[in-house]
Structure formats: structure tokens, C-alpha cells
């Protein structure tokens, strides 16, 4: 069970990122919980400067813009 956090104040790209994570996980058959972090303080504390950001099991893997679908699968598999 992996915990994926999507950091972003709720912009369209953040929503799209969340959907991408869920779809990629379903495709790979990996069990994930996706958590949305929208509060500025928590986003900042995680070290995310450009949103949307993604962390997998507490490790920051991406910040800024939509993630690349191929890379996303790699982060989820790792």
C-alpha cells in the first residue's frame, strides 16, 4: 500500500495530476491512497515551490506541471 500525496491549491492541473496518479495506479494494479494537500503551509513544508507536486511514501518526486505518464509509472513502481 503506497501513499501518494498531490500538492496543489486546487488548480486544474492539480486535479488532472490526481486523476493521472489514480489511473496509473489502476493500470499497474498497485494499491494506493491518493491524498490531496491544498493548504499553503503544508505545501510549503513539503518543499514544493511549483505546483502540482507529487510525493510517494513521503519522498518528493515531482514539482511543477503535469507529470510525464511514463515517469509517473516509474515512481509508483519504485
Amino acid at each position: 500500500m503506497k501513499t501518494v500525496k498531490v500538492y496543489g491549491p486546487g488548480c486544474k492541473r492539480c486535479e488532472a495530476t490526481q486523476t493521472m496518479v489514480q489511473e496509473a495506479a489502476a493500470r499497474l494494479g498497485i494499491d494506493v491512497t491518493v491524498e490531496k494537500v491544498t493548504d499553503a503551509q503544508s505545501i510549503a513544508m513539503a518543499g514544493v515551490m511549483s505546483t502540482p507536486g507529487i510525493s510517494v511514501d513521503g519522498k518528493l518526486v515531482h514539482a511543477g506541471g503535469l507529470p510525464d505518464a511514463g515517469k509517473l509509472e516509474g515512481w509508483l513502481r519504485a
Partner: protein
Amino acid sequence: MTTETHDPAPHRGAPDWVWYGGIPAVGSVLYLLYGQLIPISEWVTALFPVARDSHTGEAIAFFVYDVPKVLLLLTGIDFVTGVLRSWFSPERTRAMLAGKRQIWGYPLAALLGVLTPFCSSVPLFIGFVSAGIPLGVTFSFLIAGPMVGPVGLGLLYGLVGWEIATIYLVFGFTIATVAGFILGRMGLERHLQDWVRELNAGALGDLPGERLTLVDRLKIGVDQVREIVGKVWVLVGIGIGAAIHGYVPEAVMLRIMGGEAWWSVPAAVVVGVPMYTNAAGVIPIVEALLGKGAALGTTLAFMMSVIALSLPEMIILKQVLKLRLIAIFIAVVSAGILATGFLFNAIL
């Protein structure tokens, strides 16, 4: 819509030559189309059962001409900016600005504000301040980002002309630099929200830089263009511009926004701040206002206050800045905008 044709390879794994060949090809077709907009729009306008020189006819002609023009311009601007900005990241910009306490930190920050992609200012603000970038330099960055953004400049260039686009660029950049400098000199750190001041710079995570190929960068550009599809509100701005162009008499415009009416500059700022739209929504309105004889200074002031100072943005900044600092920020930027407006009304 234009964006559909701009995407030669929506699926992953298209060979590189598709990108290298497809993008210049699509670009050339769009460029040729751009050159034919006047005959096309006149032909479409003639289909409407109204006289071409009536109020309604003028408004329709404006709308029918501006919609494809703005969409084509946005396609080009968004693509080029998307590609250019792929070389800049907030992380890299932060590293460049960290420790720049010298005077040229301000213009550098304003320049990077234009080039660095960011969609929400708050995480960026915190990232900068906690890394030891002076508050004033951070403000220069945050003012320049929206104010002299490529979308605004590109549309001004295409719809209004290069002279005014250049004036806007120079003054927008100056305001961002000078306002940041003044705010920096005021020693306002104590007006940051407490949790921001206590934030430990070391807490910020750093990402390994992602290596991008040229095709990756082209994809980022196309990705930017796709977002236009969601921006239907651009049409609202063109609609307002069309209504002004068709129905507002020049005499009325001269009385309200002419150079003689000194109060029109502050009034333009007061009206502009609560308006929540970005450059793409406001520039068709600017085009129509200038066409009807509105004074350049007043129009610049209106445009700058709409783009650079927005109420929702201020509410978001409330998470990191105390109310007093937000008020000072608005006051300093407004002063710069007012000065620009008065200056142009006086010399032209």
C-alpha cells in the same frame, strides 16, 4: 478549434521526426491563415443580415475578426512560452536569486519573474523567502510575473501594435523593479505571517533535475496550447471589446477616459483591481478603448491594475502576508501604475 490541428502526435511514442516536421508545418499553416483574417472575417460578417456600417455590424465585424486572431496569437504565444520556460524552473531561479542582495537583484528577479513558469504564487513566495531571498526581490519577481507576462505582451503586439507593447514592457518592468526595491527598503519582514518567518530554509526538499530532450520541450509547448481550449472566458473579453467598438460613441469615451479627465486614471485603477481576469481577457477591451480615443495613460493604468493587482490573488496572499503588508504592497504597486498613467496622459 485551432489547437486540435496543432497536435500532430497526441499519443506517446510518436517518432521524433513527427515533432520536428509537424510543428513547423502546422505553424506555417496557422501563419498563412493569420494573414488572411481580414478577408475571412469580412466575408463572415457579410453573412449577417445587418448593415456593415451600423452599430451592430461594427460590433459583429470586431468580434468575428478578433476571435480567430486572439486564438491564433494565443496558440503561438503559449507554444513559444511553454518551450522557452522549460529551461527555467522555480528551483533554478531560486538558486540564481539566493543571496542577491545587491541592487541588480531586483531587475534580475523581475526578468526571471517573466521567464519562470508558476501557477500559484504562495508556495513560490514561501520557497523564495525561506531560502533567504530578500523580501523586496521576491516582490519584484511576483509583480513582474503576471504584469509583463508573454501573453499580455504578445496580444498587445498583435492587437494594438508594437509601440504600445514596448511602452508597456518598459513601464511594467520598471514598476516591478522599483516597487520591489521600495518594499525591500521598508523592512517589512515582521509583517509576514508568523509561521512563514519561522520556516526553516533547510526544510525545503530538492528535486533531482529532470533531463529534457528537445522533443520533451516541444511537448510542453503543445501542452500549454491545449489549455487554451478551457479558456472560453477569453471570448467574454472580446465580446466586451466588440460592444465598446460598436456602440460606445467616441464623445462619451473622450469624456470618461480622455486625457482631459485627470480623475480617469485613479478611476481606471479602482475599476481595474476588482476585475478578475488575466491579460488575454483584458487586451481585446484595451484594443477597443484605444480605438475609440481613450487616453493611452488611462488605458495603461486600467490594464496594469487588472493584470497585476487582483483581489482573489490578494486573498490568497493573506495566507503568508499580514493584512498590513498586503495593503502596503497594493499601495506601492498602485502608486507606480498611477504614475505611469499620469505620465502618459501628460506627454501625449
